[in-house]
């Protein structure tokens, strides 16, 4: 469905120096700065997949989406979306895709919401029958009827986002691009949004590409993730793989009744390599980090309880959040 080969995009910015004099100088010779927003990206996506596209701020996610949707022309490399080169044949591509940019809207701000739908119906030439059927479906999933008559500018963020998703799906696109669709939504609204995306994917086999900073979105929706860092693809694979690769890290925290007095060689007690565990102690708080493949939670707790009096304990498995933070930090997966 989507093929991306050695895709790159550079932006040229002219940096002006500060102050009035800097601005005047800037007219004559501003410093040219080139940013490689996307750098030699290759991947392919099959029909019906739901892909999580993640990366730190400024990693190049939105720039990639803009090239896939035909908004930006790549500096080099190739993209085809359902056999169409998006930036060369915008109009054909536009009929195949639906796009939601979380911080923008495609609705007519000053008009009652329903008007946006009738305008889009004309723009995409949706038949009356399809229109009625889809509007009914959108209301079932996204509950938009309650504010269909309100001007868009009076909608809450969550309502507007639901409306925007519906708007992007009115022409039943083969591919749906969602750039931060849950930005600024409350817990419930996020849940509904994810439900909606799932249902659309299930009912229409819609291919979905989702960028987000909320990893719960990813866990709920995506079988496969792409991680991008400084414009480069650093991971492409199943979410479960990355979890088994990094998810075996575990941390057990204890609150001790009495502060730790003498040095105790925990590694020796548990019969493991001292380098394979991390021990931190803060007054009465003891934290032990380890890899579950070498050591079990049971052994760790049993050992500590045998030697100390413990008033409280908690176990933290590594969640996806921590894994991703680590990958962003290290710049590879």
């Amino acid at each position, binding site marked *: 469905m989507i093929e991306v080969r050695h895709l790159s995009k550079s932006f040229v910015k002219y940096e002006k120096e500060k102050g009035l004099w800097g601005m005047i100088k800037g007219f004559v010779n501003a410093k040219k700065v080139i940013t490689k927003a996307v750098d030699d990206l290759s991947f392919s996506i099959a029909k019906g997949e739901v892909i999580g596209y993640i990366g730190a701020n400024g990693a190049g996610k939105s*720039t990639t989406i803009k090239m896939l949707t035909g908004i930006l022309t790549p500096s080099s490399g190739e993209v085809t979306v359902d056999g169409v080169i998006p930036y060369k044949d*915008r109009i*054909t591509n*536009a009929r195949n895709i639906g796009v939601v940019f979380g911080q923008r809207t495609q609705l007519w701000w*000053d*008009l009652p919401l329903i*008007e946006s739908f009738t305008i889009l119906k004309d*723009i995409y030439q949706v038949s009356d029958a399809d229109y009625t059927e889809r509007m009914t479906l959108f209301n079932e999933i996204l509950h938009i009827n309650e504010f269909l008559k309100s001007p868009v500018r009076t909608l809450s963020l969550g309502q507007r986002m639901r409306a925007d998703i519906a708007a992007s799906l009115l022409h039943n696109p083969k591919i749906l691009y969602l750039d931060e669709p849950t930005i600024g939504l409350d817990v419930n609204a996020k849940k509904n949004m994810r439900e909606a995306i799932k249902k659309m994917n299930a009912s229409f086999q819609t291919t979905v590409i989702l960028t987000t900073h909320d990893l719960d979105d990813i866990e709920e929706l995506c079988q496969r993730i792409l991680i991008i860092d400084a414009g480069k693809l650093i991971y492409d694979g199943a979410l479960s793989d990355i979890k088994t690769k990094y998810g075996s890290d575990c941390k057990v925290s204890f609150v001790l009744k009495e502060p730790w007095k003498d040095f105790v060689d925990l590694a020796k007690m548990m019969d493991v390599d001292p380098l394979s565990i991390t021990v931190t102690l803060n007054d009465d708080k003891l934290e032990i980090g380890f890899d579950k493949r070498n050591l079990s939670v049971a052994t760790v707790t049993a050992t500590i309880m045998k030697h100390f009096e413990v008033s409280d304990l908690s176990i933290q498995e590594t969640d996806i959040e921590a894994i991703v933070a680590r990958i962003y930090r290290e710049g590879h997966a």
Partner: protein
Amino acid sequence: MSTLKPYWAYAKATFTVGLAYRLHILFWVLSDIVQVSVLLLIWTAIFNSSSASTIQGYTLGQMMIYNLVIYMTGSFAFMRPLWDLAEDHYDGKIAMSLIKPTKYLYEVFFRNLGNNFIGNLIISLPLVTVLVGVSLTMNTGVTYTVANVGLYVVSIILALVISFFSNFLFATMIFLTDATFGMMQLNEAVIKIFSGSMIPLTFFPGWLRAIAEILPYASVYSVPTLILIGRLNGMDLWSALGLQVAWAVGLVIVTNLVWNRIIERLKVHGG
């Protein structure tokens, strides 16, 4: 017609939005009435202080009619894609247009057409009634022939096209310079001076008049106006219409070419 249907939706949208802003429209009409009245007062003062009954071939009555007609013409041919481009570019809204199965250039054309219809409803058509009323009740020294009215309609349609494309072409400089506000000011100033809407171009010194008559602004405002009030005849008439056609065709071609180049290099603001 079915290929135009998506585009009419844009016209309908801006038309509906325009109507939603009734108060805005009221002020717009008021400011227009003030502007026209001031011009009429100035001309009355000029004619009263002069011993001649005609200035540059215009009697006071004819000058009044000239001002009303050029105002009506400007409103009939009103297109300001510059405003659309400035706004769409500034906050990156153009991204939402580029994902639609329609061409941005023509989306903006129809958006402007929607606004244009509102202008016609609240300014041009009332002005038509005023003109008809005045002509039937007073001797203004202007007679309208059926041929002139017919040619006026043709000339207005050409003016509409020229008005849109010349302004769009000018506006593409926003994408190259990012100097939105300056562009808008410059644009309005140039239109005011060279269109003949401040004073008829016959008042200009010969060389300036020659330049002004060749520029597209005269084709938008002055030419249809002079046709309707019967001041363009014979060869002058046909060459003015010919120039309009040349501008319309040339601008459509050049604007398409330029815009296609720009869209390739477009940087869309915001992420």
